[in-house]
């Protein structure tokens, strides 16, 4: 038995629990706006993640033997579901779960992950299933919670464009900024619930899980750059706010930029990537059409994180004693 002989009472899954608590208001809001189908999608994705993740960690990787269910798998599953529209078929969350487990466990920079699992899943699904992933419907159009695939004719009656697609078309979202802020806009399940995301951010900040500097830097960079480079025929402030409130920017700024598995542990590194990420997100939004390219920006940030962490890592404040000049 070696020192230390005592250990902190903190447990490994405490962080995941904090994140799960932070997700609750977003789920509630999403259920209120999109109905019980949200629960079905989340439950399928989460259970598939746990079923796939547990045996992989238990039997494939020696370092994880004897561990219990990793609650972060559930967190990533719920976050991945938040990046889907309510109309997706019920088998799609299972595909998302496979992608999450893949990204979570195939890690080059262990214990770090190469890519944020939920962002990886969202990005791949957007590329692989563009029709299903962009079939946005009106808020409060409740579909059947257990319908594997929603009837196309039924869905066509409720189909609308998302605020991001409006911006890409060069027009303004017709329900206005307030609808976006309060979470009454069309879009992906969790991404529309801006007010609930703010609530989640406050909770995470209280629990010391949120780097407020990085999150604020990311959002402010997008806002400032959008104000500086507005769309040709748009009023600059309105355009900037629309960019900020549309798509998954709020969700990314809180959950992707604060997932320490995939961002640098140094605050300087996180700040640098937040500034870079903010500018890059605006650039891809402006020139990338209606596609949610911000997922790809986050994946790029994740990929360069180990390098940024290495560069911004503080020097150890102890080193071998320098030889005395006289001794030389």
């Amino acid at each position, binding site marked *: 038995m*070696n020192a*230390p002989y005592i250990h902190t009472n903190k447990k490994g*899954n405490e962080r995941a629990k904090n994140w799960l608590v932070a997700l609750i208001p977003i789920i509630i809001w999403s259920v209120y706006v999109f109905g019980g189908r949200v629960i079905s999608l989340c439950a399928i994705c989460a259970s598939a993640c746990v079923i796939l993740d547990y045996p992989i960690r238990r039997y494939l990787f020696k370092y994880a033997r004897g561990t219990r269910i990793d609650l972060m798998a559930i967190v990533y599953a719920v976050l991945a579901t938040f990046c889907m529209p309510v109309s997706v078929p019920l088998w799609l969350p299972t595909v998302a779960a496979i992608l999450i487990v893949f990204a979570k466990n195939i890690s080059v920079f262990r*214990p770090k992950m190469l890519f944020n699992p939920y962002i990886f899943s969202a990005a791949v699904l957007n590329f692989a299933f563009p029709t299903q992933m962009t079939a946005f419907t009106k808020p409060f159009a409740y579909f059947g919670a257990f319908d594997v695939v929603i009837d196309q004719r039924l869905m066509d009656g409720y189909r609308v464009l998302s605020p991001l697609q409006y911006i890409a078309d060069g027009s303004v979202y017709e329900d206005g900024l307030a609808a976006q802020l309060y979470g009454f806009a069309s879009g992906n399940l969790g991404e529309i619930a801006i007010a609930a995301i703010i609530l989640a951010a406050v909770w995470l900040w209280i629990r010391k899980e949120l780097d407020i500097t990085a999150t604020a830097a990311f959002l402010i960079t997008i806002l400032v750059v959008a104000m500086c480079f507005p769309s040709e025929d748009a009023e600059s402030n309105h355009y900037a706010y629309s960019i900020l409130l549309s798509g998954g920017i709020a969700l990314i700024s809180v959950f992707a930029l604060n997932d320490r598995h995939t961002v640098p542990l140094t605050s300087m590194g996180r700040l640098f990537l937040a500034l870079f990420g903010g500018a890059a997100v605006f650039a891809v939004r402006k020139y990338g059409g209606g596609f949610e390219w911000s997922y790809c920006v986050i994946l790029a940030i994740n990929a360069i994180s180990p390098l940024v962490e290495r560069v911004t890592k*503080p020097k150890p*404040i102890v080193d071998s004693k320098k030889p005395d000049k006289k001794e030389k």
Partner: protein
Amino acid sequence: MILDFPGGVCPNERTLFSEQQIKKIESCSAICIKADADAEISVEVGSEVKRGNLLGMSGGTPVYASVAGRFSGVLDIEGEKYFVVMNNGEEGEERLCPPETIAINEMTREYIIESAKKFAVIDSRSGMPLWKLIEAGPKFRRVVIDCTESDPLSACNFRICIENAKNIVNGAKILLQATGALKCVFAAEHNRGMIFDALGEFANDKKLFAMAPLAEKYPYGDRALMHALYLRTLAKDETALDKNVLIVSPETALSLYESMATGMPRTHKLLAYVGEGIFGGGSLLVPRGMTMHDITAICGNAPEGCLLIENSLLCGKPMGGVLRDGTQAVISVRPTEKPRSNCISCGECANACPVRLFPFEALGRGIKHLQKSCISCGACNFICPSGIPLLELIWRDLSKKEATE
């Protein structure tokens, strides 16, 4: 202002015996004082000695009997040599010389070094003879009296400062005189403010003395103190002496003053005997070289399943059979293995590291850079919520080598 150092952790345990006065223990069956390989004896083996009698020399420092009894010679115990005296229960003691009459400000450096050597004043913080510490630095800038505890469960430095404030301040004045340092700093955890009140009453000359309230974090050592007090960093093999700062415990200052004032060498040492299941412990004044067998017989043994750890639960080692000069605390603890799970990249280990390493990197392959700087303080291991034995991982190749050898 609370002075802080990078990293460090604050275990939840708090001291149990801070209200209890220091208890003096006289009775013991034998004392074993560590001797060097070239130790010389000054009395015949088998002869009767009184407390304070010279037994011999070890490393150039005299060794005095801390109890009266029969001198058994220098014996080999578990591969190490010890001066052994079997206690006969008598109470006699012998003074070395008459009490000092010279005023402190008239004492010279050489005179104080000679006195520290003559009275065998040992720094209980480092276990080194005080005269060697003073001689090591020709130009001291500061003297620091380190009143921090080696572990949050211990309260012996707190008690000694409260109960002997005047003599500790006098000892500090002698140390200032010996080292030629400009200022003496009393450093203690900020939540033990009573220390500053007690010492401040006598150390009221602000040009000579300063009080330094420190953050309640552990482990405190030369490195942490130097950073907290002077924002100076130490190389891995450096000590505060290399930066011309003398750091000693309050007991050392007290020993120096009391030995010179009474003419009697310090034969007792301060010890915190605390922890799980120790009900008769607390802050103790025990004969130098007392065996753990005697201590447990008087103050109670640790319950079954508990270990006795020396000095600190964060980075201490299991206690041997005899009190060493550097033993400040013996703590009973029931060691617990935290179930290990995956690294959650929380960065707590990096925050707790006093030398700003990223200990979680030990989970990867490259550990050489960690070994180069790691000071094995155990803070990363303590704080890891996933129960990953980071310290073991950092030094894993050395453990393998030791096993194969």
